[in-house]
């Protein structure tokens, strides 16, 4: 699969009202061709990327919102900043940060400097010292790990070859939006046979402006390479904008193995609408480990296209919906070759008026002989008002397929709570223990520091949850 899809002639993208005056001016609210030109100008991008953006903008306008999943009808696309120059990031006072967010930083023990960055008070968080020694190690291995903006400048041929080949901008409205206005995100290239032992963490690259509303990540794992990529942190990411729409494309070549771990906790005003997809080739393994907390509404279905014989895909996800939240998440596995296998394990927890939805698709094409599919979705309801729905879609067009599917919804009962409390725990702690036990199979796959933070965060969320 190669990409030269930016095919329509250049003349069609020569728009008349490119306003040079606004080039480095104040951030503009709303989306227009002018904003896109401003982004491209500010980044000093090559013409081909500007054309991709402009074409995606037209696609964005032509597509309607999904008529399934979370209700997105309240999003006002004109009330959003699509690009904020990093050095001129909209500063806000520490006083303006909601008390609840501050308290959570405090309780999680997030260092001062980091708190300010996460709350948008500081534009940058200096993690350079931690980062530079690792950076050297990666360079020695021939690994490229930088922001996608930088990669467009330094490795245009590789970016051009793969960008949009796994998730074309026309895939859905939000992929088009991201393609039009993307900024930041990571570019990772792992050469043939290289194993990166320390997880590549977007967190260490905060200086490279990796965090943002519309980040774009592209990972290419060459034959036989192995790496783990980790994004996010458990502390609430408090954004002035209410829309986060990222695109992550991963190419896992023959025999390579990638684990992509996300742990995110958006503040509760954020729409989190993310498209993540991997293409897995012969005997390659792709694993998505995805913990979704926070946000107002989330729609996220990491997928793996198993394109060649022996490819394997896994999605292990945790969703935690508390009051007022709707987390609609799941996974997609597309089996398009023989001897492929997939595993989906989804754990969701709903509390108060929270709603967690599992939505999954497994498709086995007629060519995919001897395929193995395993889907487990467990939902835990913490009280009488919380809600959980499951929409598993299995399209099996090959009789030579072994499918295992389990779904269970359980409720934390008075007896369970009583039992744990009789061991000396307070109500909230008892509830936290039950929840942590429920997600343990996935939490244990997280890097230790993230697993600990997740545990603590669940403890925080449980406060006041029991009588």
């Amino acid at each position: 699969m190669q990409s030269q899809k930016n095919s329509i002639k250049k003349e069609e993208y020569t728009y008349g009202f490119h306003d040079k005056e606004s080039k480095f001016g104040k951030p503009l609210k709303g989306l227009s061709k002018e904003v896109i030109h401003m982004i491209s100008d500010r980044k000093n991008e090559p013409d081909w990327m500007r054309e991709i953006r402009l074409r995606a903008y037209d696609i964005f306008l032509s597509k309607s919102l999904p008529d399934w999943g979370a209700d997105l009808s309240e999003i006002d696309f004109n009330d959003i900043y699509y690009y904020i120059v990093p050095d001129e990031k909209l500063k806000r006072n520490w006083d303006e940060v909601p008390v609840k967010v501050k308290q959570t930083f405090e309780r999680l023990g997030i260092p001062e400097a980091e708190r300010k960055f996460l709350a948008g008070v500081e534009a940058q968080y200096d993690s350079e010292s931690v980062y530079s020694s690792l950076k050297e190690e990666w360079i020695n291995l021939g690994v490229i790990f930088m922001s996608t903006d930088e990669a467009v400048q330094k490795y245009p041929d590789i970016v051009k070859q793969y960008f949009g080949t796994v998730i074309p901008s026309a895939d859905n409205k939000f992929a088009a939006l991201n393609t039009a206005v993307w900024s930041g995100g990571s570019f990772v290239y792992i050469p043939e046979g290289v194993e990166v032992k320390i997880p590549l963490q977007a967190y260490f690259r905060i200086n490279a402006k990796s965090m943002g509303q519309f980040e774009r990540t592209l990972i290419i794992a060459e034959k036989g390479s192995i790496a783990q990529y980790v994004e996010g942190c458990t502390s609430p990411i408090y954004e002035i904008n209410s829309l986060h729409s990222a695109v992550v494309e991963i190419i896992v070549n023959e025999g390579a193995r990638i684990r992509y771990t996300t742990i995110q906790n958006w503040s509760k005003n954020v729409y989190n609408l993310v498209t993540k997809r991997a293409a897995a080739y012969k005997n390659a393994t792709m694993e998505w480990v995805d913990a979704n907390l926070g946000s107002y509404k989330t729609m996220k279905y990491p997928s793996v296209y198993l394109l060649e014989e022996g490819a394997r895909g896994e999605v292990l996800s945790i969703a935690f919906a508390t009051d007022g939240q709707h987390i609609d998440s799941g996974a997609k596995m597309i089996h398009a070759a023989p001897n492929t296998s997939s595993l989906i394990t989804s754990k969701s927890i709903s509390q108060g008026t929270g709603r967690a939805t599992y939505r999954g698709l497994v498709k086995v094409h007629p060519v995919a002989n001897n395929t193995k599919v395993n889907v487990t979705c467990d939902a835990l309801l913490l009280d009488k008002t919380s809600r959980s729905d499951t929409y598993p879609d299995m399209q099996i067009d090959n009789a030579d397929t072994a499918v295992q599917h389990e779904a269970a919804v359980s409720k934390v009962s008075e007896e369970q709570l009583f039992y744990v409390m009789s061991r000396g725990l307070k109500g909230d702690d008892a509830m936290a223990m039950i929840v942590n036990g429920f997600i343990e199979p996935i939490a244990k796959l997280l890097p230790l520091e993230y697993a600990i933070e997740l545990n603590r965060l669940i403890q925080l969320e449980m406060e006041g949850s029991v009588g």
Partner: protein
Amino acid sequence: MEYIADESQLILHTPFKATYKEKPIVLFKTNKGIFAMEDRCSHEDFPLSESLSSDTEVSCQLHGSTFDLASGKPKSLPALFPVKTYQVTITEGKIFVSD
């Protein structure tokens, strides 16, 4: 071999809808030649005649998969399989299509 259209009817990069053996096909005239393919995306059957082409490719409007005009092979997901392409012969300004 079936007569489909006159070369003069085709506009650069613009789809030309036709039928061949009673099946919908689409022709694209580009700077690299004239190409004929089934008018149906291999992903979810959306007509490729809704899109403009480049010199070598066409992208489906519905989810963006790109197909090579000459071979019909997908160059991007979500399509997985090729679109059927046909032989094009031009004789005295007349376009003929065959398997």
